[in-house]
């Protein structure tokens, strides 16, 4: 009896804990899959697009979406601040906004140029805010982008996030550090970051999901990734094209397998490029810091249909040629971006590792020089000595 009384005393206070009040059944939730943020620089109004999953579309229960139900619904709401939106949304939304599971955040180019600080703070301040989602910059009007259905993966957020994963593994076009938290980390270290740009392929967006699933041309009215947005101090300051993204990602340690046609010694050859090892070191030489980037790259001939080195000397020549190309490309990329004031290869961070550089202060960092050393190795040469 005594024990029972003790138990009651221990359990009863638990009843006043918040438990019962913040409970919500699953069918009372509006599951947000993708968020789009925009702002009007003139009025300062913030626009937010929420793409909600329609559970009844059967996207996961039966596999393919049933034609008459949209897999997602896009709600558009606006307010003077992002906070206000959490109230104004309920003018439209019959269920509780559930943002814990969203997969992608898209920001309009206009807003990215204006500044992302407000948005990032808003996400961080929320108790259920997630900063581990990719942040994308809209290369097309956001409203259209948020109202576009995607083929195959019917929830656009899933489609976008799986494409980013695919690109990260199978190309050097997307870096793995494209999440909101990566942005925050880089900005707090005063380093630039590159975020992917998504845009619409054609402007005639299909607003009915049944149109989308019944139309064979997957390219029409679809989202695609196109280049990257350079963000410095929470502001978009410029763009990189796909070619530049390759060298940016390679020099930053991207591990994706990228297939590319090279022109070596006057001949074309398509090779799979894969970074094996990367090392950055700093020396104090001739009164300025010299950052050396050592890259060890493996080139695979799996796709080399044009020609194949036949002798050891030919192979060595090819290897040296490739190393030279990569060195030149990275150096030229570095010089181009340095001229714009973007430290995209994070030379400053590498230089600061050196004690002497630190002693010479911030001025010394400005005169830092980059030296790229590439060691290339050709692998898988034995598959076809002579293409047909």
């Amino acid at each position, binding site marked *: 009896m005594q*024990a*029972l009384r003790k*138990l009651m005393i*221990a*359990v009863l206070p*638990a*009843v006043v*804990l918040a*438990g*019962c009040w*913040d*409970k*919500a*059944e*699953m*069918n009372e*939730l509006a*599951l947000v*899959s993708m968020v789009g943020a925009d702002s009007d620089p003139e009025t300062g109004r913030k626009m937010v697009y929420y793409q909600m*999953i329609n*559970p*009844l579309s*059967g*996207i*996961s*229960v039966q596999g393919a979406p049933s034609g008459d139900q949209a897999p997602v619904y896009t709600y558009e709401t606006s307010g003077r601040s992002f906070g206000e939106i959490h109230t104004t949304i309920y003018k439209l939304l019959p269920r509780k906004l*559930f943002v*814990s*599971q969203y*997969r992608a955040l898209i920001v309009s180019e206009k807003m990215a140029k204006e500044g992302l600080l407000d948005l990032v703070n808003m996400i961080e301040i929320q108790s*259920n805010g997630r900063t581990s989602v990719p942040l994308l910059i809209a290369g097309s009007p956001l409203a259209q982008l948020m109202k576009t259905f995607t083929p195959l993966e019917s929830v656009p957020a899933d489609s976008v996030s799986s494409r980013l994963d695919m690109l990260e593994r199978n190309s050097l076009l997307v870096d793995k550090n494209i999440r909101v938290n990566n942005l925050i980390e880089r900005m707090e270290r005063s380093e630039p970051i590159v975020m992917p740009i998504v845009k619409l392929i054609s402007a005639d967006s299909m607003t009915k999901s049944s149109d989308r699933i019944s139309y064979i041309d997957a390219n029409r009215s679809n989202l695609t990734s196109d280049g990257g947005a350079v963000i410095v101090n929470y502001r978009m300051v410029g763009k990189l094209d796909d070619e530049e993204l390759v060298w940016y990602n390679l020099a930053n340690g991207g591990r994706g397998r990228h297939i590319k046609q090279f022109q070596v010694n006057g001949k074309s050859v398509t090779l799979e490029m894969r970074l094996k090892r990367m090392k950055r070191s700093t020396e104090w030489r001739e009164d300025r810091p010299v950052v050396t980037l050592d890259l060890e790259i493996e080139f695979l001939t799996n796709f080399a249909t044009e020609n194949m080195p036949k002798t050891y000397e030919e192979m060595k020549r090819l290897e040296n040629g490739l190393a030279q190309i990569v060195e030149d490309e990275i150096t030229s990329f570095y010089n181009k971006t340095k001229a714009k004031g973007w430290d995209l290869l994070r030379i400053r961070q590498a230089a600061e590792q050196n004690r002497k550089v630190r002693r010479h202060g911030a001025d010394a960092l400005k005169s830092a020089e980059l030296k790229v050393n590439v060691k290339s190795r050709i692998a898988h040469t034995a598959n076809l000595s002579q293409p047909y």
Partner: protein
Amino acid sequence: MRGADHQPWKDLYEDVRKALGSPTDLVLRRVTLRGGQTIQCFYLESMVDKQTIGEYVLRKIDDEHGVAEKDAFVREIPFSVPHDDMVNQTVTAIIHGQCVVVDHLRERVCLVDVFEPASRPVEEPKAEAIIRGPHEGFTENILANVGLIRKRIRNPNLRFEKMTIGKQSHTTVLLAYMENLAPELLVQEARRRLTAIRTDSILDSTYVEEFIQDKTLTPFPTLGNTERPDVVSAQLLDGKVAILVDGTPSALVAPVTFFEFFTSPEDYYQRADIATFIRWIRMISFVLAVFVPSIYVAATTFHQELIPTQLLISLSAQREGVPLPSLVEVLVMEVLFEIIREAGLRMPRAVGQALSIVGAIVLGQAAVEAGLTSAAIVIVVSITGIANFVVPTYSFGITQRLLRFTFVFLAGFMGLFGILCGLLFMVAHLVSLKTFGVPYLTPVVPLRLSEWKDVLIRVPRPAMKIGRLPSYIEYLKKRK
């Protein structure tokens, strides 16, 4: 018993009949001798072996006073003679299945033991069926049960201490142990607890269990119970004590620790690798049986962010249009399952099976299609129900059922926080429990790493040390 002026044996039959209230199964048989004297033989028909009475008792009496040599009956059949309070002693004897012979010729009363209660043959216990290993189970006859144990342990150190408990029922209870293996302290404690029982009747070993268990207010059984003589024998050989109760096939074993409920006799009749695997499956099943419904409730009503997106969408789609909250849904389905299960037990076997199929499949399917519950709930309840049957001991299965409901309530009110609170209480409670003085969570609390291998894995026989007893038995043996 003789007496010149008072001869109680003359009216003994009448006195006994009166004392027993003229029972219908009291049978009186008379043999008239040549000299005109009669010999009376009476007994309770329902409790005795009539063949023995006919072939030995009556024939010997007849022979003795007919052509056979004198007193052959006395020499050939063992009997006892009541003294002092003859009527009471005779009544006691007769309800214990003895046959009373009143010999008017020699003026004596003999009590002959011809007890043979109605009992069923040795069968396989239904609740503890196994694939490989002995299929014998205890019966309601205590002597047969003793025989089943003796058959397995042919050792003079095997002891059976007899006690009679129950003011009205006078039930025979046997305390069994191996004198050379069981700690003296344990035997003394068991003896003390048994002799301290004050009750009217003992009809099953559960009656005894409730009196001698260490703690009453606990969902966890602190005594093992089994219908298998091989299990009892194995436990006796581990230095434990067993309690056999007349009239019930289930024997009690003490002490038994929490982790021993995950072991089964079958573990030792199979190869070590598969036995280990199954032991792990049992532990996983315990966790599933206790926590799956509560975690479902907590995750779907409080912590949706923990559910993977695709699963969340799928669950959310299933819940569209379901009128009840998840907690109520789970409770309704669980209670329904318990009802079906209880009904299935009581129903005749053929109907029982049909009922469980109708209940489980048809009802579940119909409820989902009618939009009353979501399909996930049916899966949750089914997983839980099936996992509950994996545990080898029935009484431990009941524990799981009780705990499950508690956790569902906690999850419904406080989510995972509630489950965690409940878990902490449960662990605290488990740590406080003792079974005949042995900590219930041995060998985890107190920590005895060397014994973990017996909990987590079933060691191959050649790797087991000969003569090694569980550490808590060794500990009790050392404590004098």
